[in-house]
């Protein structure tokens, strides 16, 4: 029953979408400016997609196993929260969410203050995107397919996906990915009508920050999940799926900055337009990689090659037409093409180039194995060292430009104040670095450079804040940049100074390594709602600090799977991280994996600061000056 309603609302949405495209085209060719109908149709499309989404949630909530998607991804014994979140944890459901966000952004955009012609051309382009994906959804991955006879029980959801953070991270990631669709459509409309100007940049900036902030939240949540759920002590594994979200983030961060430059200096419009197109295209590419099943990852659940091919074709068509419009309607800057090198604009441009370089590095690392496999049937994998070796040295240079960019002016260059700033910041940075390395008692050149330049950025931001007459001025930028400085600092310290202990241990036994003492106190059994659990209780001592950690192993019953639940004690200086493993060869011993991860908490804090900066920019309409 629900399935029929769901299917109907999707088809109604598709028909309305057709009608909208037709009605707009008619308007367009008759050169009429009557957009009321398009406006209402646009809302109606959103309403019906929303209805379909709610019906799908409902099917999952009541465990309606006559629905194929529910049968394959749910189970009646699962907690309600995971039943509902399971609806977007699978391919079909996530595509409904994808389209819903496309439609919601389209509706929201109709409230923006953009001139009617430009606004409705944007909505027209957005609805073309909706058309492509609705067809894809209905014909290749319908979420309301029915199984007959109705099975009595579902197959269950992969237990490592049963986690609160993981359940909420896809919606954030999707709002980010798909949020860039409206900027993409707006950019195409702006290019087409030759209105890619200062006003365009101004009107686009809020939408860019919204999508960027959501994307950052999504990536952050995903990486926190990877940290405590996968049990390998890391927060970023250069997994292709993680890379698929990092690539649009790099593109959008470049876009965010170049758009500010376009707004302020009326230059680089073509670059900004190109980045707007690139950001959404890479978001789509990410979706394709994750959904096509060609990636070897927990996320890749689609195993139907048709789906991958269709999305690939859609990406090709969309990007082909986007680049065609871009080339035919290449935006021109009204300003003379003179550039002062020592200005904020050119520093932003330089860092834009770094972002694009990072993007290329990550893309090559992710796509090269896929191409090699497709063309020569050779399986390879690219090690994390590839990324670290290429990104770390350039990150250091980027930090320097990032520190000085905001301290420079847009139009004029004051040599004295630059030299003064360099000396001032370098001195303070050197002093703090020496103090830090005195405590670390560990030295390597790259670690030193990483620490030095991240502190350099942090100090530059602090100086910048004090130089403002009102502290709240440029607050969004300063908080995000401050967060970024802390992020790089923590990542460097974390990468170089993490410690690991891997040993078998018996109940009652104590293990000592350097300053750390691990005592295995006892082992308990317990019963969860849909799993059995063995919990180990450990007493950890580090110097004068003593605390308990209780990692466990869970055996999920549907589907049968064992997961290792980590136990983590976070402190300001570092995390103590413990996971256990059973091994039939160790008799009464249990294998433990213990990590000491310095400044782990600060990685999460700094990502929150970056996000917080984005939020400030969204809610306070003050611009960069």
């Amino acid at each position, binding site marked *: 029953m629900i399935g029929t309603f769901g299917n109907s609302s999707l088809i109604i949405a598709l028909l309305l979408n057709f009608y909208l495209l037709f009605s707009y085209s008619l308007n367009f060719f008759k050169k009429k400016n009557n957009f009321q109908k398009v406006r209402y149709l646009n809302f109606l499309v959103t309403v019906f997609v929303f209805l379909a989404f709610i019906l799908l949630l409902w099917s999952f909530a009541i465990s309606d196993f006559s629905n194929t998607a529910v049968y394959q991804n749910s189970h009646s014994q699962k907690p309600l929260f995971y039943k509902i979140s399971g609806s977007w944890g699978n391919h079909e459901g996530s595509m409904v969410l994808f389209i819903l966000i496309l439609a919601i952004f389209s509706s929201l955009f109709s409230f923006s203050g953009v001139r009617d012609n430009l606004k409705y051309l944007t909505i027209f382009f957005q609805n073309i995107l909706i058309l492509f994906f609705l067809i894809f959804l209905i014909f290749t991955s319908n979420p309301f397919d029915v199984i007959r006879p109705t099975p009595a029980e579902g197959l269950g959801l*992969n*237990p*490592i996906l049963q986690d609160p953070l993981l359940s909420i991270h896809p919606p954030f990631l999707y709002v980010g990915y798909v949020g860039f669709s409206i900027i993409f459509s707006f950019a195409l409309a702006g290019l087409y009508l030759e209105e890619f100007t200062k006003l365009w940049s101004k009107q686009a900036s809020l939408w860019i920050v919204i999508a960027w902030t959501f994307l950052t939240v999504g990536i952050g949540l995903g990486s926190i999940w990877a940290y405590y759920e*996968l049990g*390998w002590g890391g927060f970023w594994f250069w997994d292709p799926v993680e890379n698929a979200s990092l690539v649009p983030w790099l593109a959008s961060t470049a876009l965010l900055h170049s758009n500010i430059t376009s707004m302020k200096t009326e230059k680089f419009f073509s670059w900004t337009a190109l980045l707007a197109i690139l950001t959404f295209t890479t978001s789509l590419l990410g979706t394709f990689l994750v959904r096509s099943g*060609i990636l*070897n990852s*927990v996320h890749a659940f689609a195993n139907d090659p048709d789906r991958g091919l269709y999305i690939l074709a859609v990406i090709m068509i969309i990007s082909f037409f986007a680049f065609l419009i871009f080339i035919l309607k290449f935006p021109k800057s009204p300003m003379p093409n003179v550039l002062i090198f020592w200005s904020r604009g050119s520093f932003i441009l330089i860092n834009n180039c770094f972002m694009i*370089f990072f993007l*290329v*590095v990550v893309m*090559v*690392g992710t796509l*090269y194995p896929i191409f090699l496999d497709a063309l020569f049937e*050779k*399986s*390879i*994998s*690219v*090690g*994390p*060292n*590839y990324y670290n*070796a*290429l990104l770390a040295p350039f990150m250091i240079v980027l930090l320097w430009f990032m520190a000085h960019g905001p301290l420079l002016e847009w139009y004029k260059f004051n040599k004295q104040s630059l030299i003064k700033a360099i000396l001032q910041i370098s001195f303070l940075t050197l002093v703090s670095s020496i103090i830090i390395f005195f405590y670390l008692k560990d030295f390597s050149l790259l670690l030193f450079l990483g620490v030095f330049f991240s502190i350099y950025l942090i100090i530059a931001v602090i100086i910048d804040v004090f130089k403002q007459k009102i502290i709240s001025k440029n607050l969004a930028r300063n908080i995000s940049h401050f967060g970024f400085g802390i992020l790089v600092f923590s990542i460097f310290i974390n990468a170089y100074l993490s410690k690991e202990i*891997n040993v078998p241990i018996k109940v009652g036994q104590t293990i000592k390594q350097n300053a750390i003492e691990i005592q295995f106190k006892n082992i308990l059994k317990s019963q969860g709602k849909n799993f059995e659990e063995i919990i180990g209780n450990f007493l950890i001592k580090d110097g004068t600090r003593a605390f308990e950690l209780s990692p466990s*192993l869970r055996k999920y019953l549907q*589907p*049968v*799977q*064992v997961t*290792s639940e980590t136990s983590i004690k976070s402190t300001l200086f570092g995390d103590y991280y413990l996971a256990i*493993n*059973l*091994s039939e*060869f160790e008799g009464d011993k249990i*294998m433990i*994996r213990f990590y000491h991860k310095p400044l782990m908490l600060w990685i999460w804090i700094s990502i929150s600061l970056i996000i917080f900066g984005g939020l400030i920019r969204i809610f306070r309409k003050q611009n960069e000056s």
Partner: protein
Amino acid sequence: MFSKSVQNRLKLFSVVGIIVLILVLFIQIQLSKNIVYFYSPKDIKQIQNLPKDKIRLGGIVKERSLKKIENDYSFILTDRSNDITVSYKGILPSLFVEGKSAVIEGSLKDKNFFIADTILAKHDENYMPPEVANALKKNTK
């Protein structure tokens, strides 16, 4: 020969071109340094020159082949017709089970003996890495 603006543009293009070339070179060098090739047990039996670098090997852990000798584990990785004995020092992940698929990283000693330094297991029990599935398929063909 050229006007001033053309000269400037040429300068800019050549500088950008050189920088791009250097960066591409960087990427190329790092890529070739950090690539790990994947082999199936059948591939190993067929190749003439054994790879000296670190490689990945994927297959099924043969039933009743897992043994522990002092601190070393030893087991047989198979594609159901070609067997390779693997020795491993370290901790076995809980997802490492006899009769299920596994991907290991390490180096070959000879055609029948592999020294693993990592066992890659991030996935659930029913999941089979595509490389392993391919390797098994190749063998049945």
